[in-house]
């Protein structure tokens, strides 16, 4: 049996569609040049020397005691943060799905917690951690009267990262818990199991793969995190910060490349386990739709302790966020609590704040629509079309999710500072705003693509086929059918990518040139110097921007989104 005829016919049909063909070619080129090539160059850098293939660079960096320590540090933090985030996430998810929340206030708390990771810049919690618990911290110094508390180091990073990442686990696990058919648990209850027994023998085993999934996702986020260890790590270096220092401090580009390869290897392995093993397993065990609504737990001996625990955590997290704008309004944090606007003033008068906000805003605003459109196109191709390069496009755009920003940054330095393979091609890109925009796009592409893919999977294949059958070509089908149907996903992709870009730092800090001032880089700089007032002022304005972006998005979706259309005509 030969399938050659259908293959060649499919190819002919594809070729009859020039827009589609050029889109695919452009995508393949983009992904190869801006994701695969920078990673490949890191491998070349670290394995190839003048004398040919060698492990010398690895031997050299492995000989550095600070690097070895960074590896263990990173893994230790990642492990703890992964477990803690997954468990706290589970607690929140369980309470929301299983326990009757009595007050609007509690519902509000849960909503805020689920939104925080979307709107917050990554290092905000580090700032407030220092301001609440550091040497001059309000809680440590003024409430507990401890004058020499150090928040820097392992515990600082671990706590801050856990508080930053657990909402992601919460959202993931909430989705899984909602898919458990209540009758499974009712059957167990009916046979005489106590609530705790049901949780341990039914609910917990069912979501165990999902919990593992949440753990690994957080683990990857934690070890890829650059900003928090930078601000609150002190002398406790992680891989991301060590690599950064290796290139900015020791100017050892080869060594940094080899270190980046090590970090990449760790995240890649984790990512592959997560993506191809756990993710499939966690949804496979829970494919059943809930048959009807769950009877919520109203038993006070369960609800009261759980709600208190959750509220306490949620309020604590919220206080930490609120701490940031307050930090910008006192003369000297920890010593002089007179209200002042001088920090906000200085942002604009002394530290070129306007330019920083303008640069960050414009670059992010350019990259956001491109990312959103690109991820919708990729999702459309991956879900709805058959062609040869499809596997490549899907794999590479997902691979970008596993690449820590620091690794990508080093890859871009090594890959583009002398042009591609040192030939000078595309060298003009290096040091421009364009390369920053590209980094923003690459960093946000996987999230957008993922949301696009899941949105498109909901849409019956025959809807697009019918348009195609009526005489529309691929481009027309995409513009008149696909895109309107996933408008919500496009809009949220737009805003998510904007927010991610404007709050990004890890890759950007390695690539930015003095001609561009970026807010996040400024915050990092002032926090490093200990000028928390200025850092907080910058951060407050940044949160304001991201929060308004999300608000605007929600408004737009509410008024023009597809979900509303369906609702009103029902």
């Amino acid at each position, binding site marked *: 049996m030969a*399938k050659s005829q259908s293959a060649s016919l499919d190819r002919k*049909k594809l070729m009859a569609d020039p827009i589609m063909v050029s889109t695919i070619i452009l995508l393949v080129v983009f992904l190869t040049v801006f994701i695969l090539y920078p990673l490949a160059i890191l491998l070349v850098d670290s394995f190839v020397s003048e004398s040919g293939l060698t492990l010398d660079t690895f031997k050299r960096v492995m000989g550095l005691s600070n690097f070895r320590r960074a590896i263990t540090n990173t893994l230790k933090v990642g492990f703890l943060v992964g477990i803690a985030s997954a468990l706290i996430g589970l607690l929140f998810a369980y309470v929301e799905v299983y326990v009757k929340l009595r007050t609007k206030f509690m519902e509000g708390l849960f909503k805020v917690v689920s939104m925080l990771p979307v709107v917050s810049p990554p290092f905000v919690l580090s700032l407030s951690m220092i301001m609440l618990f550091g040497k001059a911290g309000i809680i440590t110094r003024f409430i507990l009267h401890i004058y020499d508390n150090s928040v820097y180091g392992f515990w600082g990073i671990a706590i801050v990262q856990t508080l930053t990442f657990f909402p992601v686990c919460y959202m993931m696990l909430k989705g899984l818990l909602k898919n458990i058919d209540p009758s499974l648990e009712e059957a167990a209850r009916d046979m005489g199991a106590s609530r705790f027994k049901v949780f341990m023998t039914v609910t917990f085993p069912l979501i165990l793969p999902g919990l593992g999934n949440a753990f690994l996702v957080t683990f990857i986020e934690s070890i890829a995190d650059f900003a928090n260890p930078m601000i609150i790590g002190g002398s406790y270096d992680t891989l991301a910060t060590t690599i950064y220092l290796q290139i900015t401090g020791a100017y050892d580009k080869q060594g940094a490349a080899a270190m980046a390869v090590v970090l990449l290897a760790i995240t890649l392995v984790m990512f592959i386990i997560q993506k191809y093993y756990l993710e499939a397993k966690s949804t496979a065990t829970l494919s059943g739709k809930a048959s009807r609504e769950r009877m919520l737990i109203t038993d006070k001996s369960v609800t009261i302790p759980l709600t208190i625990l959750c509220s306490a955590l949620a309020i604590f997290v919220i206080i930490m966020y609120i701490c940031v704008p307050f930090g910008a309004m006192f003369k000297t944090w920890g010593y002089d609590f007179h209200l002042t606007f001088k920090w906000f003033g200085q942002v604009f008068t002394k530290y070129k704040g306007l330019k920083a906000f303008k640069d960050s805003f414009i670059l992010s605003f350019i990259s956001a629509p491109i990312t959103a459109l690109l991820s919708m196109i990729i999702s459309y191709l991956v879900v709805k079309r058959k062609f040869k390069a499809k596997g490549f496009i899907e794999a590479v755009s997902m691979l970008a999710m596993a690449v820590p920003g620091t690794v990508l940054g080093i890859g871009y330095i090594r890959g583009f500072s002398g042009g591609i393979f040192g030939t000078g091609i595309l060298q003009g890109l290096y040091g421009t705003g364009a390369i920053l925009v590209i980094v923003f796009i690459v960093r946000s592409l996987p999230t957008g693509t993922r949301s696009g893919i899941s949105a498109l999977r909901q849409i019956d294949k025959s809807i697009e*086929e019918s348009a195609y*059958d009526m*005489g529309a070509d691929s481009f027309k089908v995409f513009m008149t059918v696909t895109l*309107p149907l996933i408008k919500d996903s496009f809009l949220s992709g737009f805003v998510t990518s904007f927010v991610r870009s404007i709050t990004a730092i890890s890759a950007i800090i390695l690539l930015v040139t003095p001609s561009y001032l970026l807010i996040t880089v400024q915050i990092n700089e002032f926090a490093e110097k200990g000028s928390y007032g200025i850092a907080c002022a910058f951060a407050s304005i940044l949160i304001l921007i991201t929060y308004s972006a999300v608000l605007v998005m929600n408004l737009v979706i509410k008024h023009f989104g597809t979900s509303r259309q369906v609702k009103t005509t*029902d």
Partner: protein
Amino acid sequence: MSKEKKGVRLEHISKIYKDPKTGKDFYAVKDANIEIEPGSFVTLLGPSGCGKTTTLRMIAGFESPDEGEIYLGNEPINALTPNKRDTAMVFQSYALLPHYNIFDNVAYGLKLRKMDKETIRKKVTDILGLVGLEGMENRMTNQLSGGQQQRVALARALVIEPGVLLFDEPLSNLDAKLRVSMRTEIRRIQQEAGITAIYVTHDQSEAMAISDKVIIMKGGLVEQISTPQEAYYYPNNKFVADFIGEANFLKAIVKSQDIVEINGEEVKCSTGSLGNGAECSIVLRPEGATLGDNGSIMGEVEYSCFMGAYQDYHIKIGDELVKIQEYNPKNKKIYGVGDKVYLNFEENTLYAL
């Protein structure tokens, strides 16, 4: 209404798929040779997995054949994309565009053909009248019932005046009563529009009710192409006999031309090309025999049940069980379990395979 009725010809068409479990290739459709007359209504009929939908999707262009060539009229269309083919499909799930109202759904194909606004308005109004949806232009798709949605899908396919109309199990999402009335409707509209139609279904009564010809498929192979009557009275093989209507198969031996021996009794039956002494199976439809106190073949009643329109019997003849339906039971003698009865075959109802 159609500019030009087009015929469809499939020459040696095969489609190979990979079994996702074993990883082995298999023929979803094998060496199909089908000729569809312009203006006729043809049904691809068979159980699920027989290759009927794959065949339809190859005609529409969504799948490419691995062997053979498909002709639309006289034009080979293998390399054409669906949007370049003069076909229009009505989908099982209706596949209406949910963000458009009825008017825009029906007008979609016309707009792509760059017709002017006035023509579009007129054509859409006319076609909505034909399918019985006049005045519904501004409704959204989710404000319609399943039957209405399928009418919109039909209108949308008709309005672009395709050479061939394709139906992919269009009624299977509707309830039983609506299915019956919709299939008459589809047949009426097809006749009125005078368009070639290819219809996929697994429901044999639906196929019989609307088709000029049925193409019966099984496991990727075309088993029979004929009128519904021919398929019922002269099935090519046991599968067709059993799939179209109900059938009993009685073991028999050909005695001479048009005489066979069943259970020791000689019976008249068209034997076709079978030679004397050949072993064969006799196809007996449940309504093809009457019961009496005397007659040609004796049996014993194993099961007897009143079904309203008919009395349902299982009769044991030798070691074979035969299902018989006697219509109008009110006027007939009812036999109970254990009774001895004789089967009398009506003229021309037996067919030897």
